[in-house]
């Protein structure tokens, strides 16, 4: 492979990873120039173009996050869960759960499988009614379920238009916004690909974008990083903190304890014995 071939491959992969075309051209040209100056083939200096593109793209994304963390004030309460219990027939899934979440905070719900994490999230979303207790929440929410969050036979743009219509956005605006939000997760949606043809990780990125399309005050996410590679997982958490800095309250169901020190509340659920 010639050096210029490597350079154009790098450019293509950068664009696929969500970098703007103009910047991609520049980054690729710089990389090729440095290799030329060192007298090395770009492949031996940087490795395969596709891998280097992923590194560069995530560097660009992550740098803009850590650059200037905004000062945060505690905002209004966006979600209040009080004494929530949920029982199905003879099986109790949740017992006396309490949580108060404010705008500008992130809460993680952790627990083993079967501890009722998804059930609690569904109750907060409004899909299920709690057996007892109360839930108060703001009306502007975003919700990303763990499964079946996207429609297999629709393209990403069609998803954006559909959800945009719920929020009163014009089709053009919703597609433009969705595409921009996707870039923040390192993904450039293609026009002619339906959701079932996307990789699992990319489907989940679509899932996450749909949850934030209307700039909600409260974002509910149920382990949406299934199928993410390491970079995407980090990008996802960067996005969570970006939402927080932007003034939203974020509630994430997770069983990965990795980033919990950056989170404002951790709610641990334990499986309730059969009653």
């Amino acid at each position: 492979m010639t050096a210029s071939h490597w350079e154009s491959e790098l450019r293509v992969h950068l664009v696929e990873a969500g970098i703007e075309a103009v910047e991609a051209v520049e980054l690729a040209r710089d990389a090729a120039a440095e290799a030329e100056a060192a007298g090395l083939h770009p492949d031996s200096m940087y490795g395969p173009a596709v891998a280097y593109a992923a590194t560069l793209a995530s560097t660009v994304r992550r740098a803009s996050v850590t650059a200037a963390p905004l000062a945060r004030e505690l905002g209004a309460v966006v979600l209040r869960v009080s004494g929530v219990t949920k029982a199905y027939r003879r099986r109790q899934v949740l017992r006396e759960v309490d949580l108060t979440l404010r705008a500008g905070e992130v809460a993680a719900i952790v627990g083993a499988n079967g501890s009722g994490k998804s059930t609690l999230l569904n109750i907060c979303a409004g899909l299920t009614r709690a057996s007892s207790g109360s839930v108060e929440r703001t009306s502007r929410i975003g919700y990303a379920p763990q499964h079946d969050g996207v429609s297999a036979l629709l393209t990403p743009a069609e998803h954006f238009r559909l959800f945009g219509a719920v929020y009163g956005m014009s089709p053009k605006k919703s597609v433009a916004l969705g595409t921009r939000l996707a870039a923040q997760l390192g993904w450039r949606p293609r026009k002619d690909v339906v959701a079932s043809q996307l990789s699992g990780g990319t489907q989940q990125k679509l899932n996450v974008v749909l949850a934030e399309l209307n700039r909600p005050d409260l974002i509910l996410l149920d382990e949406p990083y299934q199928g993410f590679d390491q970079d995407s997982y980090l990008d996802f958490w960067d996005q969570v903190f970006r939402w927080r800095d932007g003034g939203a309250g974020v509630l994430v169901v997770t069983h990965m304890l990795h980033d919990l020190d950056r989170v404002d509340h951790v709610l641990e659920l334990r499986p309730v014995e059969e009653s």
Partner: protein
Amino acid sequence: MDASTRQHWLHGFLDLCLLALLAERRDYGRGLAERLADAGFDDVPGGTLYPALLRLEKQGFVRTEREPSVTGPPRKYYELTDLGHAAMRERRDAWQQFRAAMSTVVEGASRAPNGPGSVR
């Protein structure tokens, strides 16, 4: 101990090293790599060095400039901004605290009866 562990160590501090080298004087990519090697580090691969420089640029610590060079294609020079100088000072202070703590713990071990030698 193998080279990959040392590489991991350098990864954590690479940004600070680059900030410090650039605080001394502006330089281009390969020049920085050479100075790191001279200082005693293993070779830093291009795939690590240039993303680190890009990160510094995106964070506003460094600005870049192309300059024609006598010996070949134009070179991209990196220079610290005021923000970069401030960041460098902050991180250097943090490093000095870290280094003092490391010394206490690690070099303290060599004072023990089974240690290899005496400490400074």
